């Protein structure tokens, strides 16, 4: 069975070779550099331009999208695996710092995702952010983010990945805190940054362990070492070894960036940022960086760090389910989508942990499109209603038809309705779980699908159906905002077709998977992907049933009572509701830890400082002062000053005497001249 699975992935299927790439890949560094150049250009020239710098941003994004698309197509058609590194410095004696870029199946797919979603979000943002404060800086930061994300996914070594990782975190901080005039927005940015920073410790230590074990920072070297069971990686630590601990630490880093439970607490608060930011960063790209890292390091997890996967699996499944439940009780539309994102990230992590490389990355691919769509549509709604709360919405499908249609498509894709994109990707995940024999997790995943459908139906019903409860005049958004919505809706529909499986009829496989898994397998090392060879009918049906059940139940509860909407607003799951509204007290735990550090711990340190350390310092100070006084009185006043004063008085006296020579009478000066000349002549003649 394993060998069959192997056969379906990577290049063994066609027996075709991997090519090395040509000029298109050699110049790929342009897409890494262009966003940074654009970011600086926007800062300097943006304010004077007609659209205040947005033109530069959109132009850059178009370039990135075009080039990324070309790279992806080229990779698919020619099976290109290209990696280029340039040494830029040395760390000590044996480490070389390199900067470079990778073009293979995984990276070029990410380029496409970043490029396409990014371009659409940028266009959307030109209209959405019009009139908002710091318009130019917004686009500059967003361009910086795109550049950082591309640096991250193009990295051929862990050092560059970390650089991209941190830069993305910086951009996230800048953009979440865009409206920093309100304290909670800047606090949200800080929270995101600090939680990520905690996770980054794990990332850094994991990087060091793996790099030292293999002797190189490059992915290819580390993964080769993993496959060949290199000695440096098998050094024992406690009950396990370097490889497992390093892999777990890398996963810890990924937990922060990809908002896995319990480090997910920053993502809902990050909704304080403008909606385009939420769409691009906190749905499609930045939060997927952790999943990307896991996918990039997949051979490590498949070969020698297999023990790490059970922890990853538990974390992923917990994330998936628990955060989905919280989404049920949110009143803020964006927060519903945020928790939904966290839940879907849990799906992706579960898939990767279960050995489903293709499944996890494919879900990343499809999720980027429909989640970005949902966020942008939510932004359109918020723009029209001027409020984030669903209590101020209702009945909007009459006022905003296009937004309503695209939001519906996005929701159906998310829930996983055939034949939209989410169906295929969710089914792939379920198939991977089933194949790997993780039955319990499989049922939790199916339950999660139910919960997903439930809360999305609730959101749709509260927002678009019933009677409008707000006080404003909702209106449809302009073309610049709705056209990207429609494009993304189109993607949400067709993206699933890139990975359509063949169909198992009896014992035979009819048809084959369309290319996505092949494309993803185009990389330097064989992946050992646990990829189901055909559509698993049973799991597909279970997943579909769960989704439909969720929709039906949700509609029954939240879709009724269109006039008064009392029922829907007051519905709460008994017992679970209070726990959910306080988000399992996780935020409070985090605050409590911070509070402890701020409060008692700081006070204790302060006591030590004041009573012990300061005492010593003060004593030394007093002693020095007294000694100084003695020196001053005796040496300085009586000794040195006396000498100096004598000198001064002497100079004054001498000056006074010499002054008498200055009579002001010219002839006396002339006489002095003559006398001097005579003296000189006499002197010369005597001594010569």
């Amino acid at each position, binding site marked *: 069975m394993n060998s069959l699975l192997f056969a379906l992935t990577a290049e063994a299927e066609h027996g075709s070779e991997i090519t090395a790439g040509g000029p298109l890949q050699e110049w790929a560094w342009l897409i890494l550099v262009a966003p940074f150049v654009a970011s600086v250009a926007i800062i300097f020239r943006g304010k004077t331009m007609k659209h205040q710098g947005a033109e530069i941003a959109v132009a850059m994004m178009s370039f990135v999208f075009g080039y990324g698309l070309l790279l992806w197509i080229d990779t698919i058609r020619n099976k290109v695996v290209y990696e280029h590194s340039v040494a830029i410095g040395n760390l000590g004696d044996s480490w070389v710092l390199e900067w470079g870029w990778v073009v293979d199946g995984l990276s070029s797919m990410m380029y496409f995702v970043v490029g396409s979603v990014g371009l659409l979000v940028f266009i959307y943002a030109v209209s959405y952010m019009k009139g908002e404060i710091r318009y130019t800086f917004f686009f500059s930061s967003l361009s910086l983010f795109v550049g950082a994300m591309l640096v991250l996914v193009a990295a051929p070594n862990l050092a560059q990945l970390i650089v991209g990782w941190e830069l993305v975190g910086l951009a996230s901080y800048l953009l979440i805190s865009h409206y920093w005039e309100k304290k909670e927005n800047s606090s949200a940015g800080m929270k995101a940054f600090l939680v990520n920073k905690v996770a980054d410790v794990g990332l850094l230590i994991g990087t060091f362990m793996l790099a030292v074990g293999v002797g190189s920072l490059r992915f290819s070297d580390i993964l080769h070492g993993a496959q060949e069971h290199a000695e440096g990686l098998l050094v024992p630590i406690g009950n396990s070894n370097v490889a497992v601990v390093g892999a777990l630490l890398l996963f810890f880093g990924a937990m922060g960036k990809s908002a896995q439970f319990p480090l997910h607490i920053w993502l809902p608060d990050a909704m304080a940022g403008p909606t385009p930011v939420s769409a691009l960063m906190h749905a499609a790209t930045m939060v997927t960086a952790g999943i990307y890292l896991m996918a990039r390091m997949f051979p490590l997890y498949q070969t020698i760090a297999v023990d790490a996967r059970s922890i990853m699996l538990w974390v992923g499944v917990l994330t998936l389910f628990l955060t989905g439940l919280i989404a049920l009780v949110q009143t803020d539309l964006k927060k519903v989508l945020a928790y939904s994102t966290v839940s879907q990230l849990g799906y992706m992590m579960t898939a990767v942990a279960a050995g489903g490389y293709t499944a996890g990355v494919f879900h990343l691919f499809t999720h980027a499109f429909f989640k970005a769509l949902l966020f942008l549509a939510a932004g359109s709604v918020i723009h029209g209603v001027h409020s984030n709360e669903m209590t101020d919405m209702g009945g909007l499908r009459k006022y905003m038809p296009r937004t309503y249609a695209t939001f519906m498509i996005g929701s159906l894709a998310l829930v996983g309705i055939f034949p939209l994109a989410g169906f295929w990707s969710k089914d792939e995940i379920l198939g991977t779980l089933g194949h790997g024999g993780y039955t319990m997790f499989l049922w939790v995943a199916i339950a999660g699908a139910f919960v997903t459908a439930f809360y999305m139906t609730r959101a749709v019903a509260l927002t678009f159906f019933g009677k409008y409860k707000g006080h404003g005049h909702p209106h449809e958004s302009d073309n610049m905002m709705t056209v990207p919505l429609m494009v993304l809706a189109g993607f949400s529909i067709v993206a699933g077709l890139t990975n359509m499986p063949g169909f198992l009829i009896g014992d035979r496989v009819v048809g084959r998977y369309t290319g996505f898994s092949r494309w993803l397998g185009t990389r330097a090392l064989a992946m050992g992907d646990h990829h189901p060879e055909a559509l698993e009918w049973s799991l597909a049906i279970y997943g579909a049933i769960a989704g439909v059940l969720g929709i039906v139940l949700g509609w029954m509860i939240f879709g009724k009572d269109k006039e008064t909407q009392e029922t829907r607003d007051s519905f709460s799951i008994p017992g679970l509701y209070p726990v959910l509204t306080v988000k399992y007290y996780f935020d409070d735990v985090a605050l409590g830890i911070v509070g402890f550090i701020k409060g008692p711990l700081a006070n204790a340190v302060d006591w030590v400082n004041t009573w012990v350390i300061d005492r010593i310092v003060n004593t030394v100070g007093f002693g020095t002062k007294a000694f100084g006084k003695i020196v001053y009185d005796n040496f300085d006043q009586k000794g040195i000053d006396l000498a100096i004063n004598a000198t001064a008085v002497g100079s004054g006296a001498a000056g006074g005497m010499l002054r008498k020579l*200055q009579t*002001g009478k010219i002839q006396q000066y*002339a006489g002095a001249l003559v006398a001097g000349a005579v003296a000189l002549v006499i002197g010369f003649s005597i001594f010569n």
Partner: protein
Amino acid sequence: MPIVPVLILAAFLFSMGIYGLLARRNAVMVLLAVELMLNAVNINLVAFEAMWLDSMASGQIFSIFIITVAAAEVGIGLAIVLMIFRNSHSANLDDFATMKG
């Protein structure tokens, strides 16, 4: 003829000039004494030129320069004396000890 008498004459004129420079009260007279000294120097130069017969006659050239510069100096000096006279209506040098101290 021997050169020593000529040089002694020049020395005599020079010392006359010094006396006049130091002992005269009027500013114009002091300038006259300076002219006398310059004249003495010219005699010296021409005498030495006659003795050594320099190929470029540099002694005479030099005395021409001295005459020229002396003329310029007299012009300026008299202008200054004129201004002092205008300011104070006295050309007495003893009265101009304002730079004293």
